């Protein structure tokens, strides 16, 4: 599991204690970092993590050989690893649950909205990124159209990724910042306005514009502050969930049937490829960032806890700044980089927002492996004050969105209705579990999307076509199995 190991209580050799937390943190933070990021950055960060940790391990004996027998160091280092793994797995269950809850919440929100507000299931046109319609005469034509749609969408994503890498390479930070801010503005204000309007329409609630303006304004401003700056953790998590849900709803509404399923499938394949192939643009991005040893942009990351630095008085502000990068509650004055704490997910499907969306999705993600690298570089004494229980796991918001899209589509368009929705829900959760497990076992970068989406898709189609008639018949005769 991608847990941060707790601060080891074992202090076998006095001289080595300082290095323990360092080692552990580098191991575990990297494992934590890589695990659930939006696939893209996973392998790069992981790989680097391994390199780093190995470097450290090699460093340890070197630095500590004065008077210290070598085998002791080796043994300690090995024990280090074992304990590392143990603690990693021990905290695994808790952190998995910490991820289950927001994913479940997001899905619940999406499903509830789909079921009640009919706006999101009406076909009001398509995004310009999916220009081919699916209302054609023949099945073959429809299939062709949806394949073309999906291809266009995926190529847009790839282009945006490359664009972002290029921008990052040439240090056009301002542009990226601007993108992030604009997209989060749009999401928070415009989309929630539409959403609120539709909800009111559904429940026939009379509302005047002034009240609405006030509500939306407050919601938006608080959201911007929470996400981009400081704010209580719960509130930030809530905002992230809301934004993922909004985004997923937009996808569900504006993507036609077959295109949506195809896109889901292709996205997970793309994730898999991007993680396992060494030539991805994202990998280049992360490596560049690591070379420059900078903190990347705030990620589209959902963070389940925050990291507190208890005694921050004596350490240098630089170290603390970087250490608190993970925390959503910066006690120190945040570095200017960390101000772009933008866990924004994608934007809708309208023209320029797509670009921003891709940016948001991909760009900020780069930040985290970097921040990991930065955190590892910290002196160990600043880490030792971290409360192990407070460390959490992070999951990319893009993952949230696609999970919710899957479940939402299942509830919107399935003949099996709630059965299908439930089946997809369980499938996705199990996929998430498995992904975390695999990550803990292999300690390699693994994308969070493919396994869950595959399970979800399989279960959706299977439940819809196979289980549904069976259950219908059973319920009709009132048989029970």
């Amino acid at each position, binding site marked *: 599991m991608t847990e941060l190991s707790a601060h080891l209580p074992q202090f076998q050799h006095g001289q080595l204690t300082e290095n323990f937390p360092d080692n552990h943190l580098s191991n575990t933070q990297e494992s934590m970092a890589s695990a659930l990021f939006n696939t893209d950055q996973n392998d790069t960060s992981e790989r680097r993590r391994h390199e780093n940790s190995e470097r450290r391990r090699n460093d340890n004996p070197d630095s500590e050989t004065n008077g210290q027998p070598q085998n002791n160091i080796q043994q300690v280092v090995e024990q280090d690893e074992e304990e590392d*793994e*143990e603690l990693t*797995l*021990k905290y695994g*269950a*808790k952190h*998995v*649950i910490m991820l*289950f809850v927001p994913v479940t919440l997001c899905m619940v929100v999406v499903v509830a909205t789909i079921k009640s507000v009919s706006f999101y299931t009406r076909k009001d046109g398509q995004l310009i990124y999916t220009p081919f319609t699916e209302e054609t005469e023949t099945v073959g034509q429809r299939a062709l159209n949806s394949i073309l749609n999906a291809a266009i969408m995926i190529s847009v994503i790839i282009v945006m990724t490359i664009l972002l890498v290029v921008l990052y390479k040439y240090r056009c930070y301002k542009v990226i910042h601007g993108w992030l801010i604009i997209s989060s503005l749009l999401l928070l204000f415009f989309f929630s306005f539409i959403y609120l309007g539709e909800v009111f329409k559904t429940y026939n609630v009379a509302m005047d514009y002034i009240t609405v303006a006030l509500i939306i304004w407050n919601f938006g401003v608080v959201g911007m502050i929470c996400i981009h700056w400081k704010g209580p953790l719960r509130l930030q998590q809530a905002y992230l969930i809301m934004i993922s849900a909004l985004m997923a709803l937009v996808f569900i509404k504006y993507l036609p049937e077959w295109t949506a399923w195809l896109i889901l499938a292709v996205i997970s394949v793309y994730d898999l490829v991007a993680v396992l192939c060494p030539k991805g643009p994202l990998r280049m991005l992360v490596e560049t960032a690591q070379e420059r040893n900078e903190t990347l942009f705030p990620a589209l990351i959902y963070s389940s806890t925050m990291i507190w630095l208890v005694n921050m008085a004596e350490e240098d502000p630089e170290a603390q700044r970087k250490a608190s990068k993970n925390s959503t509650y910066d006690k120190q004055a945040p570095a200017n980089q960390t101000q772009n704490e933008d866990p924004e997910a994608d934007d809708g499907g309208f023209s320029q927002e797509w670009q921003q969306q891709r940016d948001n999705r991909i760009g900020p993600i780069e930040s985290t492996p970097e921040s990991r690298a930065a955190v590892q570089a910290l002196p160990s004494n600043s880490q030792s004050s971290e409360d192990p229980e407070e460390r959490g796991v992070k999951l990319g918001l893009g993952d949230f969105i696609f999970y919710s899209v899957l479940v939402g589509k299942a509830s919107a368009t399935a003949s*099996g*209705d*709630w*059965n299908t929705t*439930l*089946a997809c829900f*369980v*499938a996705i*959760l*199990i996929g998430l*579990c498995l992904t975390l497990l695999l990550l803990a076992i292999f300690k390699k970068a693994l994308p969070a999307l493919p396994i869950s989406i595959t399970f979800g898709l399989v*279960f959706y189609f*299977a*439940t819809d*076509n*196979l*289980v549904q*008639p*069976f*259950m219908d*018949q*059973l*319920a009709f*005769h*009132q*048989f*029970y*199995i």
Partner: protein
Amino acid sequence: PALGLFLFTIAREPLRIIILIAGAFFWLVSLLLSSLIWFIAVKASDPRDEALQRGLLIFGVIFSVLLQEVFRFLYYKLLRKAIEGLVALSEDGCSPISIQQMAYVAGVGFGLMSGAFSMINLLADALGPGTVGIHGDSQLYFLTSAFMTMVLIFLHTFWGILFFHGCEHRRWWEIAAVVVMHLAVSGSTFCNPLYVGSLVPSYLLMAIAAVWAYLLSGGSAQNVRRFLLCK
């Protein structure tokens, strides 16, 4: 009641939640496979023959029951492996969760999933307008469905405990008893809508299973008495 069980006993510990969801998943897979078989059978047969369809349905039900038990067994195997892993990784050498707890949680997982699948469409329809039993069917449809589902969820929970206990101690007759009970309960539902034929035996069987599971888990009549008298 199942939800209450969940809230009070499972929701606290994350490991149990994972086991629960995994249990639900296994049940789901078994359902999938059995409906696949049924589907194939139906497609290969004449859709207009009522008796044949009913017969096929019964066959599907029996097959599904057997598959469920098979998957329960598979789940047991998986949990055994997991428990060894957990023991190896824990600090003090003993597993954070015992096999009995796992059995209980697995049973609840199975039960919840089966109950959910049985009831949820019904509930959704119940929210809408309509009259129960307008075509001459029983008016108690919803009520009996609810009771049946509840008894089934409980039964799954108890069967989980019994089953795992049987596997642990290699008592094949226990496992066989669980399978037979399951078949009996499902079979009793075949005489619906003659509800007295299905609900009463099911509840009886549930009571038996409950007592059995309780005794297996180390309880005794003394405990019950002490509990009731709040000593």
